[in-house]
Structures are given as C-alpha cells and as structure tokens.
C-alpha cells in the first residue's frame, strides 16, 4: 500500500472506500428530504438551505477523503479518481449554492426556496451517481435524475410566464433528445448483449453500431448544449431566474460532460470514428457559442452561449482523447477540469446577475456602486477568458497542449482564435461594470429593458390571479425577482469562495491535477 495522506485519513474513516463511497449520496438524500418537509421543520426555508449546506459540505469532505478504485455492483459503478474529482466538484457547487440561498432565501428577499433546495439536492444525487456509473441504464437514469429537477428550477416561479415558457421549451427539447438517446442505447444494449461498459468495449465496428453510438452521444450533446443541439439553452436560460439557473445550468452539465468523456473513453476503442463526429461538433459549438454570445444584451442568454462555447472546447479535448493518444487519460482529466472551471465561473456570474439584474446594461456603474462585486466579476470573467493565474487559464492551456500533442495544428489555431473571439463578450461584462456609466446605452438595450419590465408587470397581475385561485397561506406575494437587492453576508461569502476557488485552483494547479489523476 502506498502511504500517503489519503491512506492515513481513510484508515481513520473506514467507510469511504468500497461501498462506503455511497455514504455521501445518503447525506444528500437526507438534505433533499429535509428540504421537502422544510415547512414542518425548524428553520423553514433557511433551515432547508442550512441542512443542504451542511450535508453537501460533509459530502464534499467524504468524497475528498475517499479512496478511489472501487468497482461496485458487478461492474456497474466504477469509482475512478476522475469520478471522485467530479463528485467533489458537484458537491462543492451544491454547497456554494446552498450557502447563497441560505443568505437570500425566505426573509433575505428571495421568498420561498425550500423546493428549490430539494430539487437541487436531488439533481446533485443524480449527478454524483452519473459520474461514476459504468452501465448504460444507470447512466441514463442518473442523467435524467440530474436534469429533470433543473426543468423545475428553470420554471421555479410558477407565476412568471417567461420562466414557464423556458421550462416548457427545455422540457420538450430535452425529452426529444433523451428519446433519441434511449433509442440508441437500446441498440447498443442489443448489439453488445450487455449493459455495462465492459460489453461496449467489445462492440464490433459496423454501421449499426455507428448509428447507435451516434444517437447516444447526440442526446448527451443536447444535454451539454453543444451546437447545433443548443436551441433550448438561450430561451430556457433567459426565462429562468438567475439564482435558480446558477444551479440548473451548472451541475447537470458537469455530470453529462463527465459521463460523455468516460463513455467516449471506452467506446472510442471499438468505434474510433466517433472522434470525427466530436470534432465537427466542437467546431460548430465554438463558432456558434462565441459569435452568438457577442450580440446578447441579456446576461443569462450570454451565459447560455458561453456554455455552448465551453461545450465546444470540452468536445475538442474529448475528440483528441478519442483519437487514442498515449496521454488519453490526461485528456479525460483535462475535459473534467475544463468543465469545473466553466461551472464555477458560470455560477459566479449568475450569482452576481441575481443581485444586479438580467441585462448587461444593469451592470453599468457597478464598480462605483459595489466595488467588491465588480472586482469579483472581473476575476471571474478573466478566468473565463483564460488569463493566468486563474483556473480558466490552465483549463484552456490543457486543451491547447493536448490538441498540439495530437498534431491537429489547424484545430489548435482555430481554437486559439475562438478564445480571442470569446474574450470580447467576457470583456463586455468587465467593461459594463467599470466603464458603464460613461457610455449611453443603445436603443436595443432600453427596449429590451422595457419589455422585461412590462413582462414583469403582466406576470405580477397574473400572479395575483393565480393566488386568488389557489388560496394558500404559503404563497408569498410576487415581490421576488428584485433587481439590485443587497447582498447578504452568505451571498458575499459564496461569491468570495468562488473567486478564491478560481484563483487558488489556478495557483495550485499541479496538486489538483494529481488529485484528479488519483496518484
């Protein structure tokens, strides 16, 4: 046995190896049930958030000090080091989100949040199961568990028409692609006469296998919003509320990215052609994401396209992995690191948007109003652009190094150009918050703002009607969704933690990669 810190700690905590690594799932489940019954329990909404926070912090620690390598349930659940890293990231994201809702929920100005916490916890459970699953059926079930709560989170304020519209679109398009994925999966199961990855590795390479694999990965493309399957994302994001979206847009995406990377890692051996498909999708996503984001006036729409663009970079590195290099495990880890970097940054931007408003123009004068928030936003944006020493820099550096090692120089140049293009819309965030007041807004922006306000007025009238119909003591008045609400101490802590994670993970990049690689 290798003597290291992990081993010493795990010898004190014997449950976190073998089947013990399922313990954190139970913790998250406790938090989910607590949140479901929160109005009967002490603390109500904030109590739910607090329990969620405590359980996800505990789960983070459990995963952090767990021993990877467990092969459970007859090869259906393989807890590899990269799965451990992804699980840590997911639990950490859940913890940050609970911290933020703990500060802002109930009397913090946000209103009722307990079901949101419950759904977030359920989604996190789905995500941590999915990242370690090595069985097609488990993967599909877990991914659905990870994504379905996010439909609810997108339309969480049921009296906001835009939110419901977004949720509906998300639901319909997601169901369509899930069906395609299931259809493909049924072929894969039939062709390999097995549901596990071990069976997939022995597939024969023929047209039917190609189509089946294509359909399965196509469903995952849609879930990670890679172009041209990203159509749901901008509309759903725009309709959602920033705080709910900060979870719904992040955690399912981490899960599906890790699952895709692990699946391709196995399936690229019998079906090497999948690399080309991934490359095409990567190029598409980078172009669509980077260029479409430039024109957006709504922060959430911009983040949707930013997600498309990150999906492009992730697919690029997965494609390089699928080409079967010597360091393809390194490429797998790089993909996971990239999605982690994007996840923290997206969550941070959406937290700030939840306080400041939906439009890029709402950020105008932020540096004078709230210098702390402006600097935090600047650091997050800088990480997304990829400037050292942030985590975003190393994530992008890994992608470039791997692309160069695969000798795909044209793709390398293309990816670098796309990074430069994407820099412009991230810079828009910094520019609005530091130099926004000096610029006059364009008419487009004001129109959009007016439309947004009109929509709000409409939806509040409707909310009153709905309340009249379902008279229930628990329904809050429709005073949520206030722009420019004050930051609670917990919200400040959450944002500061995100900034710290982005900076620290960049500075301590090597230890993190070591943790990710499991050595």
């Amino acid at each position: 046995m290798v003597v290291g810190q992990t081993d010493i700690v795990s010898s004190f905590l014997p449950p976190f190896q073998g089947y013990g690594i399922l313990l954190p799932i139970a913790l998250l489940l406790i938090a989910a049930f607590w949140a479901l019954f929160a109005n009967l329990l002490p603390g109500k909404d904030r109590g739910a958030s607090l329990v969620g926070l405590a359980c996800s912090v505990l789960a983070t620690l459990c995963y952090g000090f767990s021993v990877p390598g467990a092969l459970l349930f007859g090869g259906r659940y393989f807890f590899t080091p990269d799965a451990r890293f992804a699980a840590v990231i997911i639990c950490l994201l859940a913890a940050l989100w609970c911290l933020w809702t703990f500060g802002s929920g109930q009397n913090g100005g946000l209103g009722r949040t307990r079901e949101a916490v419950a759904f977030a916890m359920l989604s996190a459970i789905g995500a941590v199961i999915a990242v370690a699953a090595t069985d097609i059926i488990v993967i599909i079930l877990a991914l659905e568990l990870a994504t379905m709560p996010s439909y609810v989170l997108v339309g969480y304020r049921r009296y906001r028409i835009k939110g419901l519209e977004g949720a509906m679109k998300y639901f319909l398009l997601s169901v369509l692609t899930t069906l395609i994925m299931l259809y493909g999966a049924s072929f894969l199961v039939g062709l390999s006469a097995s549901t596990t990855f071990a069976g997939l590795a022995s597939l024969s390479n023929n047209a039917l296998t190609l189509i089946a694999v294509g359909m399965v990965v196509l469903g995952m493309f849609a879930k990670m919003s890679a172009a041209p399957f990203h159509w749901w994302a901008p509309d759903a994001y725009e309709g959602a509320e920033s705080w709910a979206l900060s979870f719904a847009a992040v955690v399912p995406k981490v899960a599906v990215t890790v699952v895709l990377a692990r699946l391709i890692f196995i399936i690229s051996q019998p079906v090497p052609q999948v690399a080309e498909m991934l490359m095409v999708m990567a190029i598409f996503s980078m172009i669509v994401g980077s260029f479409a984001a430039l024109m957006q006036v709504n922060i959430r729409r911009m983040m949707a396209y930013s997600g498309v663009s990150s999906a492009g970079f992730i697919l690029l590195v997965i494609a390089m992995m699928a080409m079967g290099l010597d360091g393809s495990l390194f490429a797998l880890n790089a993909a996971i690191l990239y999605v982690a970097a994007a996840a923290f940054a997206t969550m941070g931007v959406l937290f700030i948007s939840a306080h400041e408003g939906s439009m890029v123009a709402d950020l105008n004068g932020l540096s004078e109003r709230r210098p702390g928030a402006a600097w935090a936003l600047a650091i997050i944006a800088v990480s997304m652009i990829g400037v050292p020493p942030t985590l975003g820099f190393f994530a992008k550096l890994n992608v470039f190094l791997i692309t160069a090692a695969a000798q795909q120089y044209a793709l390398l140049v293309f990816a670098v150009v796309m990074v430069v293009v994407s820099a412009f819309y991230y810079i828009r965030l910094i520019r609005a918050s530091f130099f926004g007041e000096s610029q006059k807004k364009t008419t487009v922006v004001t129109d959009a703002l007016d439309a947004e306000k009109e929509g709000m007025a409409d939806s509040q009238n409707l909310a009153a009607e709905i309340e009249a119909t379902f008279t229930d003591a628990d329904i809050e008045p429709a005073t949520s969704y206030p722009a420019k609400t004050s930051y609670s101490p917990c919200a400040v802590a959450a944002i500061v933690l995100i900034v710290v994670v982005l900076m620290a993970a960049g500075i301590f990049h090597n230890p993190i990669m070591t943790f990710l690689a499991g050595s």
Partner: protein
Amino acid sequence: MGLKGIVLEVANIATAIACLPGSYSFDGMIFTNALAPVTSWVPQLNLWWVALAPLFPFFGFALLICLPRELRKTLRYVPIACLTMSFFIAVAAAIAIWPGGPVNEAFYTLQWTLGHIGAIPLTLSLAVDSLAVIMLLMVSIVGLCVQIYSLHYMKDDERIGWFYCIMSLFLAAMLGFVLSGNILLQFALWEIMGVCSYFLIGFWYRNKAPRQASQKAFLVTRAGDVGFFIALSAIFVAAQSFELSQIFATAASWSPFLLAVVCLGLIWAAIGKSAQFPMSIWLPDAMAGPTSGSALIHAATMVVAGVFLLLRMLPVLTLYPLAMNIILAVGVITALYGGLLACFQKELKRVLAFSTISQLGFLFAALGVGAGFVAAFHTITHAFFKALLFLAAGAIIAATGTKYMQEMGGLAKRMPVTFASFSIGAFALAGVVPLSGFFSKDEIFKALLHHGHDTGNYLAFAGIAIAGALTAFYVFKSWFTIFFGKPQTEGSANARDASTLETVPIAVLAVLAAVTGLAVIPLGVFLGYPAGWPPLYMVAISTGVMVFGASMGFLAYAYRTQLKTTFARPSYATASAAIAADTYLNALYQHVIIRPYFWLSYALWRLDVQILDSAVDGVTWLYQQFARLSYIFDVRVIDGAVNGISWIYVAKTRAAKWFDDHIIDGIVNGASWSFVLSSRLARIFDVRVIDGFVNGLGQLSVIIGGRLRTVQSGEVQWYQRLMLGAGIVLLAAFVIVFVLRGL
C-alpha cells in the same frame, strides 16, 4: 451485346465504383468487391443497385419531412422524380434478370450485416427474384400514376406537401417490402406501411370521420400485426434466422407445432392487412381519406402487402395443408361477402372498396390452392384496373360534386375520356374478353377447378363463380347508373372531364388494364410457370358467368324505379341499409371486443377507487395528526428557544456595529482611493485597446450574430425540427464517411 448486356455492364461498373461495404453472398457464394470478367452472368450477377428502388422514394420522404410546409409544397415534384428513378431501376432489374425463373427459387440475394444480436447476425438483405421485380414494376407504375394525378387533384390543399411526403414513405416501404429477403425487415416495413395508411386515411384530420376511420384502420391492422409477430418469433425459434433463404431451406424439418404457429400467424397477419373477412371492417371506412390515397392503399401498397406476404411464404404454407384450406375458405367467404355488400352500396367509392375486399378474396382463394403465379398475375391486373377505377372515381366525384351514384347519371357524353377509361377498368373488373381481368380471373377459375375433386373444392369453385357473377352485377349496375340516363343533379349536368394532369395517368392505367392480360404467356415465362391461352370451355364458363351477372346488373338498372319502390318497404329498407353499412360485422366487433374491453376497464377503475383511495385517505388522516402535534411542539418548545436566541442576537449586533464603524470604514476608504486610480488606468485601456478590437470585430459579429438570431426564433417546433435535421445529417454523414472509408 444487346440491351441486357449494356444494363449488366453499367451495373458492374457502378458496383466497382461504389460498392456497399460488408460481405455479399450470391447464391451462397461469398462475393468480394474484386470484379471478375463477366463470362457467365447468372452466378455473378450483381444486383445491389436494385436496393436503390426503395431508397429513392425514402430520400424524397426524408427531404420533405425536414422542410417547412411552404417549401414542402414547392418541392412536391421531388417524390415524383424519385419514384421515376425507382421505375427505371425496376425496368433495368427486369431486363437484367430476363428471362426470369420460378418464384422463390431464383434468388439473387445480397446481405449486409448490420450488427450482431448476441451471436446471431442482424442482416439487411435483398432478395431479387422474378416476383419481386414484377411487383417493383407494378408498384412504381401505379405509384407514379397516383402521384402525377394528385398534382392536380390535391392542388388546393395547403398540406399537399405532407401528402407527398407520406405517399413517398408509403411507396418506399412497399418497394422495400417486396425486395426484402429478410422477414424481420419485411415486418419493419409492414409496420411503416400501417403508420402511413393511418396518416393517409386521417389526412383531413380536422373532420371526425377521417379521424375515426384512421384509428379504426390502424387498430384493426395492428391486431393483425400481432399474428405477424407471433409468426416471427416462431420462425426465429424454428429457423434460427430471419433470412428467407434459411427459412425455406429448413422449413421441411420444423416441428409440426412451430410450423402450425408460423402458418396461422402469417395468415392472421395477412387477413388483417388485406382486409379479409372478418377483419375487413376497416377498409370501407378508409374511404374517408383523399381518393388518390385510397387508390394507393387499395391497388399498390397496403392490401397487396398481405397477399404478397402469403405469396412469399407459400413454400412454407404448402407444408401445412390445414393452413391452405383456411386461406381458401377465408378467400371464398370474403369474395362472396365483399361482392354481396358491394351490390347494396349507394356511394361510388364504397362500391369500389367492397369490390377490393371481394377481389382480395379471389386472390386468397387462388393462394389457397397453391397457385402462386395466378395470385401474382391477378394482383398485378387488379392493381392496374383498381387504381384506374379509383382515380376515375375521384375525377367523377370532384366533377359532379356528389359521392352518391343515384345523383350522377348521363356522364358518358359529358366526361368522354373518363367514361372510356372507367369503362375499360369496369369491364376488366367484370372479366370481359379480352381485357386483363378476364385472363387473370380465368386463371383463378382454372386453378380452382383443377385443384381437386372433392366436395370442398367444388363448393369453393361454386362460391368463386357466384362471386364472379356478383362482380359483374355490381359493376354493370354502377356503370349504367353513373354514365347513362339523365343527369340527376345540377352538378352532374355541368360535369366535364378533369384537366390533362388527371386524365393522362388514368388513360395510361387504362391502356395497361386493357393489355396486361394479353401478356399472360410472357409473364408466365418470367415467373417460371407454364401459362397458356385459356381453353375454350373456361372462356365459355367465365364469359357465361359474366354475362349472367351483367344482364342482371342491366335489369337492376332498367327496373330501378320498381326496385326502389320494393326496397322502400320498411322491412327491406332497414335490412338493405344495414347490409350497406356493414352493420352486422361492426356490431359483432362492438359486442365481442369493444364492450367487454370497456367493462374490464370499468371494473379495474372501480377496484382502484375502492381500495387505493381509501388507503390514501388513511394516510392523509395520519398526516393531519402529525401536523397538529408538530404545531404544538413548535409553539411550546421552539418559540421559547427562539426568544433566548434573540437576546444573544441583539448583543451580537451591537458588537458588529462597533466593528463596522471603527475598522471596516478605514479599509473602505483606503480601497476607494485605489479604485479611483485603477479606473482611470482602465479607462485609458478601454478607449485605446478594447474599442479598437471591438470595432474591428464588430462588423463580422453583427453579421453572424444577426443570422444566428433569426434562427433562434423562439418556436419549439422549429427547434425540434432543427435538432432532428441536424441529428439526421450528422448520423448520415457519419455513416457515409464510414461507408466511403470501407471502399
């Protein structure tokens, strides 16, 4: 070298250029892509290109379904062009395998292994024999006529693009069905045809009748598909393969039980699909769809599929005599039943519908005595004259504005081209010398007469002969009513021939319906059957039967006023209306299947209400008690604790305020000075650097972003279409690259 040589040469060159990947076996030989010089063509005949016949219409379908409605409408010529290609491929195939050979024996098979299910290969296979080729020709000709006819017939419908889309898929499925050398593939295409007929019958889904008719058709044929599925499973158990060649090779050694299951399942399936008694109830209602769709369903695709399935599986069915007898009995009963009900119909299209049922009964009777060639021959002649009759009926109904025959009359002078064509079709149906129906029906009589000499066979022959007389009766009765006498309505008086676009396909079919019968000897040679001119006594029998029926029909027409008074009597009126509406069979279904089904549902529902609901009520009560207890706990215990905590909180707040005033303010003042400095620097950076970049890229991004925004329209249907389209393109590209790389 000759025409055949040229076709083969072209085919071989094409094979060399773009051969499908995988392994091929021709007559059991594994054939690789290296082309040996063609010395003797039969064993090396490479017919993979015949697979393009169904693929062309499928391409038309795949293209149209991805497009929005307007564009679909504009591109409705694409399916026609695709089907024309299929027609040429069919002709080339016919030339290539000329002079043909016996059905089911001269297979030129091509297998493409898709993958493995466990250890059993899943293959797509193509079986080209004389039967498949002749069916290809028939389907593509009838399909083309229907599609060209629909250009004008459906021109005012805004969903014409959808109509073409579905027709294209329907034809692709039928073409694939006849070519398929694998019963699993046949089953898949069979199901696709079921779905297509559902869409075609329910085309005007805003009206109630088409909606109900489409559901009825779909459910009844689905009930038949159960039989197919059972047969499929039994075949897989018995033959360990879905390949037709494998099935025929092993059928003789199957256990009697499996053989019975296979045969009965297949018959069950064919009865459902081909609308045989007692599953015929869906076909007359299917008239609610567009007439050109009905022509397709009745002549070339849907109902023919059932007959074709039995035709293909005839080598298996003949091993089980009971199955053959069932087929014969079903056929005779259906022929009589359909013919009888056709006599009572008042609507032109319903006459034709029952006539189809009756004619399919003739086909079943022929199959029941094992006369494969006769069945194939009558299928083809029937396809031509029935398609012709439907298209002409569509033109007549559109011109007169009524579907009731009594309201027509005197159309012979007003619609001369339609009259001439319809007459050829009607005479062919009745079996007038020397039109095609005469020859094919004659072959059926002959086959029945020569089959055996026991009572059953004589009964069958008598039944079919009576059905023949009935056919002549209703055909001539309708023919006189429609075309002679005085016009009964305003619409009929002003009726004129339709546009050339409608009359030309009708006329083409009329020519084919007239002359196909004369080609009985070459067709016999092609299908490997010693067909000859009908002997004189057969001509006498069948003409006698026909003349008897026809004269009865004329009398029914001549004495129609007297008949009307007779039938106006209440006892007759009710009965004839009930027969005309096929009430008895529908009522049988109502009482035997539908009512018990609802009773069962109701019983289960009651069970659910009684047991589950009381359980739920109990849980609710428990929950209420719990909530009450927790409320008491909240007021008594937690409130006390909260009051204690609030005191601590006040003290904490005071401390925090002190900290805020003395320490944080100092830090903030220091920080704000740094912000002022940094913002000045940043402004310079902004003006000099960022603006420069942004302006340079601005033009490009405005263009691209604007484009992307139009695509992002906010409509879910549009997104779904985009996603599916992108998915299909991606997967297709993926597979094509794979295929090209395999070369």
